[in-house]
Every structure is written in C-alpha cells, then in structure tokens.
C-alpha cells in the first residue's frame, strides 16, 4: 500500500475548483495549497498501479498543469512482486536449453 507525496500545479484562478475535485478521489488527501496554485496532496493507494491511475485522472483536468512527485514509500510492496508483476507469457524469465 504505497503512499506518495505530490505537488499539483494548477492555474491559480482554478485552485478552488481543483481542490473540490481532489477530495472526490478515494485515497487522496489535500494537506495544503497556496496562492501560486501549488497543492500539496498525499495519495494512499492499494498499489502503485492504482496510484498511477489516480494521477492520470487528476492530470486530465485542463486546470492541472503538472503533477510532481516528491516522495514515495512502498515498503509494503517490496517483500514480493507487486500485484500483476508476474504476467504469464510476458514476464517469466529467460527460456533455457532444457538439456
């Protein structure tokens, strides 16, 4: 269950609008914002895959100019491959001569 710290840069005049949008996303917490359109948010997601999907969805809004990551903790994921990491037929290692 990774936790990411991000700064979302939005058009300053649209900050309130984006803050309203962000609170609709499960796992997204807004921790602060400023007059320059910087929004500090944390994403607590079940996987980095879900986190990536959330970031993509936020990035769709026209008022969102960029999303910068500053921190990612994934200590729950590293003891084994992330869900879906072993994809049959895709990630399976090198085929060797059986002989």
């Amino acid at each position, binding site marked *: *269950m990774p*936790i*990411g*710290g*991000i*700064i979302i*840069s939005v*058009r*300053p005049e649209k900050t309130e609008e984006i803050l309203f949008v962000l609170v609709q996303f499960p796992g997204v*917490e807004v*921790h*602060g914002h*400023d007059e*320059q*359109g*910087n929004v*500090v*948010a*944390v994403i*607590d997601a079940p*996987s*980095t*895959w879900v*986190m*990536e*999907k959330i*970031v*993509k969805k936020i990035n769709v809004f026209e008022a969102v*100019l*960029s999303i*910068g*990551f*500053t*921190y*990612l*903790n*994934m*200590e729950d994921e*590293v*003891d084994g*491959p*992330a*869900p*879906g*990491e*072993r*994809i049959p037929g*895709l*990630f*399976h*290692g*090198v*085929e*060797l*001569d*059986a002989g």
Partner: protein
Amino acid sequence: MAQSRREFLKKTAALSAASYIGMNLPYAKAGVAPGAEEQTWHRGSCRLCGTGCRVELGVKNGKAVALRGVKDARTNFGYLCMKGMLFWKCMGHPDRLTKPLFREKKTDKFKEISWDQALDIAAEKFADAVKQNGSNSVGYYGSGQCLTEETYLFQKVFRGGLQTNNVEGNPRLCMASAVGGYLTSFGADEPIGGYADIEQANCFFIIGSNTAEAHPVLFRRIMRRKLDNKDVKVINADPRVSQTSRIADLHLQFDPGTDLTLLNAMAHVIIEEKLYDEKFLSDYTAFKSGKNETVDLEAYRKFLADYTPEKAAAICRGNMTADKIRQTARWFATSKATLSLWTMGINQRKQGVWANNLIHNLHILTGQLLKPGADSLSLTGQPNACGGVREGGGLCHILPGHRPVEKENLRNQVEEAWGMPKGRIPAEPGYHTMAMFTAVNEGKIKALWVNCTSPMQSLPNVELYAKGMKREDVFIVCTDIFPTLTTQVVNLILPAAFHFEKTGVYGCTERRSQLTVKAVDAPKGAMPEVWIVREWARLLAIKLQDPLIAKCVESYDGLEPDYALPKAIWDEYSQKLTKGRDNDLRGATYEVMKQMADGVQWPAPTEEYALTGGTVKKFVRGMDPMADSHAKDDKPYQFYGPAHPDGKLWIWLREQAAPEEVPDAEYPFYLSTGRIVDHWHTSSMTGRIPELLRANPYAFVEINPKDAAKLGIIPGDMVEVESRRGKNMLPAKVYEGPTQGMVFVYWHDQHPDRLINKVTKDAFDPGSKEPEFKICSCRIKRISGPQALTPFIYNG
C-alpha cells in the same frame, strides 16, 4: 495519542512535498520529521532521462522501500516524475538476468555458464577476431546510460589495448548533431549555461522538443516560471501539437523539415528590424559561409534576403503566417533573456548540425547568451550521454576529455596518461554507429560488444541491420539487466548490476557530474560492468600475448568492484585526462561529489572551486575559472573553445535543405517518432513496470482528423503505416496533434507489428552521422476496426 504507522508516513509524504514549495503545514511542529526513521537514505541520480534529477533511495533490511527527491538539488529541487519514482521496481524484478548465458550458434538455445567460462569465451572470441582479421574487426557499442567509469574503461581497453577506435554508443543516435552544433558555433561542446537560466528567462523558445513528456521535471520549472511571471512568453515550434504546447503563448506548426527556413526567417526579421546586438557582434562574432570562408554582416544580410517571413510562411505551411514569424523573432530578440530548448526534433535530422547552428545563430545575433536567463540549451535524452560518452571518449572520433582522435598531440597525451608508447592509439577514427552496423552487415566486424543498449530496436531501418546481427560469423556479447530484442541475436549474455547496485558518475545536460553510490546488492550473479571489463581484459592480454592490454587495467588490481574500483577509474579519468581540458573535472572527486546535493558543473579544476558547485556559465570571466586563465584581453567573455582558434562565436550561413525523403504520390505522408511520458526508450525497463506498461501498453499512430476523415479512419481503427523499408500495424489515435499530412508514432513498443524503426529511414547527417529518425515518408491505410492487442516485452 500515538499515531499509526500509515498516518506517520502520510504526514512524512505531505511534509516532504510542502517543504519543496516553502509551505508550512500545521503539524510540522508536532515532531514529525521529514522522512521515515528506520530507513537509510542513499543519494543518487534518476536514470530515466537526461535531466539528472537527484533522488534518495530509502533502504530497509537491504531492500529499496522508498524514494524521495532531493530538495537542494539544482536539477529538480526535489521534484520527480512518475517514471522516475518507479524505476526501483527493476531491482527485484523476476526477469533480471543473473547468470551468464551462452550459445555457440544464434539458432541454439542459451545455456547457463559460470562467470569464468563466460569471460574466457568473450576473451577467446575477441582475440580470435583480432588474430584472424585485425584490430578493426572488433567493436564496442555502448550507451548514454552507462556510468562514466564504464564507458571510460571500455574505450581504454578497446583503444589502448585492442588498438581500435571502433568505440561507439547510442548517443550517436540522439546527441551527435548537438555536439556538432556546439563545436561549430561556439568552438566547444556542451552548453554555455544550464537549468539555472530557466528561472531567469523571459522568453522560452522550445523547438523540436516535447519537454512535457520527455523532460517532465524541467517542464514543470518552465511552467512555474511562466505562471509566476505573467510577462514570460513561451513559444513552441513543432510540427506536432504536444503536451508541451499547452503552456505556449504561440505555437508554430509547420511541415517537418522546413524549420531551417523558419530559423533563417527569424534571423531575417532580426536583421531587417535591427534587433541584433551590434556591440556583441563586433566584439565576439565571425560570420562563416564555410569553415575557412569568413564573410561579414552585409553578406549575411544578403544571404537572408530571400528568407522573408512571407516566403517562409508559404514554405513552412501548417499554421504559419508572416506575422507569427515576425512576432516570434521580436519576442526572441527583445526579451530580457531568451532561453532556447530542443531535443531530437532538431538533432535527429539529416541537417541536424545545421539546424543546431541556426538556433545558435539567433542567440549570437541578439546577444541572448552568457547573461542570466539567456542560453542555447540542447536537452540531453539520456542520463550520461554528456558525461560518459561525449566527455569520456565514448564515440569513435573522440578520446577522453573532448580530444579529437585525429590530433596526434592529443592522442599522445592520452597514451602518456595510460603509460602507453606513442602511436599505440590508431590515428584514424573508427566506425561511427551506422558505419559500424553496416560493417557488421558486411561481415567486417567479427566480434561486437553491446553494452546497455538495444540496437535491434533503436537503429533506424532496423531490419536491414538485424540481418548483420543475426550472422553466425559475427560474435556478439551483450551486457544488460534484462533480455531485450538485442539479446535474441547474441551469443553471450552477461548479467549486469543495475543503478544503485553499483557506484559511478552520470553527467547530465548542463555539464553537471553527479555520483551515485551503491545502496543495495545486485541480484546474486549480476556484476558491475567495470569488474567485467577488468577481468575480461586480463584474459584478453594472455590470449593475445600483449602486456599492454593488461596494462590498461593493472592499476586496478585487487580493488573491490562496488566502490574502490570505480573510484580508481574516476580518479584516473578526472585527474589525468580532463586536466587542462575544457571539461576539467579535477575538482569533482568522489569525496567532493558525496558532499554535494547535486554534483559539480565543469570546468571545476580544484576541489575548493568544485565545492561551490562549479561553473554555472562557461566563458564568463568571474564565473568560469578557465575564462580567467585563458583570457586573451580584458573583455568580459572569453571563448577558449578548442575548435575556434580565433576565439569567436561563429554565425553560419546555412540554407534550407530538404530531408532525405519527402512525401510523394506513392508515400504521401511524413512520419515522425518520439517518446511518451511513461516509457523510456526501448521499454525494456519501463515495460516491465506494470503501472507504466498498463498506462501505455502499446504504441499507436497519431493522425490529424482531416487526414483521418479523408481515409475513413476513426479512433481505434487498425492502421498500416508503411514506408519503402517496412511496415507497422497500429491502432489509430485521431486528434489535432500532428500537422496535416504527418503521422506520429511512439517508438518504445517491442512488438514486431509495432516496432516503428522497421519503418524509419537510416539516412544520416554528413557531419554528425546522426540518423534522421524524425522525418521520412510513408503511406497509411485502414486495415480494420479496433482489435484486441496485448503488450509485448521480449523475454528470451
């Protein structure tokens, strides 16, 4: 009340983000320190583009568990992109190569062998090739992703040991035209300024670069500069509307290959409206119609007479008008500081060097150089194309320290530093990349070492060169961390350690060298390349009975490979080979770089100076120690670059010249290619990170809606993209991206149906030898409606 572990981590994440923008959060005083406490943090660079973002890898129980940006790093100020945040997933991936694999014939299956056997085979095959066919029958093909220590050591053994200059690397495919442009315009390779100019620029001229996707962290800085300063202008010149265009005040869209006309037309306006800097021109500039042909401003004015904005708009087409060209030229010339940025749209061209020259021309004409915020800045694509390959001697014509091979006195300097007799390094440059793979096709190269790159995917017109790589009489060894399309045609695969599993230096776009120290162990069996080369060279010396091969590595005897060995190599390179050169790195020792959040910008001749961060602006007295030590007069700027003996900047008279292939009745479309934000090059790494793969599981072809309507193509349809060389079948994305008459395809996809370099053309710039990936002609047709596709990553 004690907070939960998750709450603690969330506050840590928020505090980390807030600290980068100077925001105070209410719980900052509640005893939550930025960063979790059980981890150890290891500083290094991101490896997934050329920006050089600094990161800290959090390690717990020997495993990477967290990543954060380095707030004090002047490359990224703590910001990272999603791709950079996830590269750690390559470390423990189940596909990692961990055993040397060998097969005598390329049609056989691989067998696991020991390292002793593998190194012996590699030495035997290279020795046999040299004995039977001479030194020029062997070659090294490396990468802008190798550490400097790796590139330096490989080229030392090939040049000083095996006596061949067949040393190349994939930066030939991306940066060679920028090298040619800097050398011919400024007399010295690599930019004068750097990223620090972003926060002081008032006009950005972004041409041939989708910065938003290829360099997202730098794009953020540009965007921030614009948002915080309403008078800042952004001009985006590109045949395709991209993510970068969304912050542009002016987007100039034109037919591919007509940008030389645009750039000359801007110069025309600057001259006619007297927007040039007369004093700067008179003090520092020469006009050149040829290397040995100097002309004057009047001749330049006459040369430009035909490039009126009206004529240029008619040639460039797209959305261009004469007024837009005039506006662009005025903004460029009259802003307090103009910063140009470009990447492969300019470099990967048959006229790549000329296109670079014409951008530099505009900066020289207007004096938009050397002052804060003004620069002509070529962005690098790979993390160590500059540091390792351009500076470390990783191209066939350049020895370490920016020394051209053909200069005898410079070869002698290198020979002396290596303790070799004069004449040991051959006088002739080796094969450049396209010549090297042509030589493979012709059977002239008998043994090739491919390191950390995948030419089976990244070469243009790749099927032509695949034929050579599949030849049974060409022995190929490949060092990598994963199977790639290239490992499928090699005889020997050597498993390498990944980033943060070894130690070494990357040098990014802005002349900045940064150290990454090993933080975690490589999977058992994978080894650092510097160890591999040292051991191989020892065996090679025995098999060829040549003690000078052994001499290449004898000073590294007994050094452990994780730190002491790369440090010894860096010390030799920086202290002996950069001394007195324009990339003087003597001050950038490991000890100094470990103290710096973001490394050192050269020239940095002393440790004391390097500890200040080095040289932010080259050629400026008081800012560049070499500008002071090489001063010829009392002027504030001193151009000491080795390629211009007159000490001047050169404005070039370069005509519009057509690409090698333009649309015709049979192939009526332009084809261009590029990156997508989630993937890196051939996707052998990013394609194995499920989050990134699923975000963009396959490539597609972007088609302008007007063209799509004419051809009856709707979004999702399967479309055949065919050139005279090959074809792809890709799903269509129909949108106002590419200009009418042009299609665009991402190049990361490995699937044989979507491998776009089967379609691209292998013409190359006659000066830089860089191929023209960005322009060829093709035809497209609808094959079917949408089809279910599966991603494809080659696994051996």
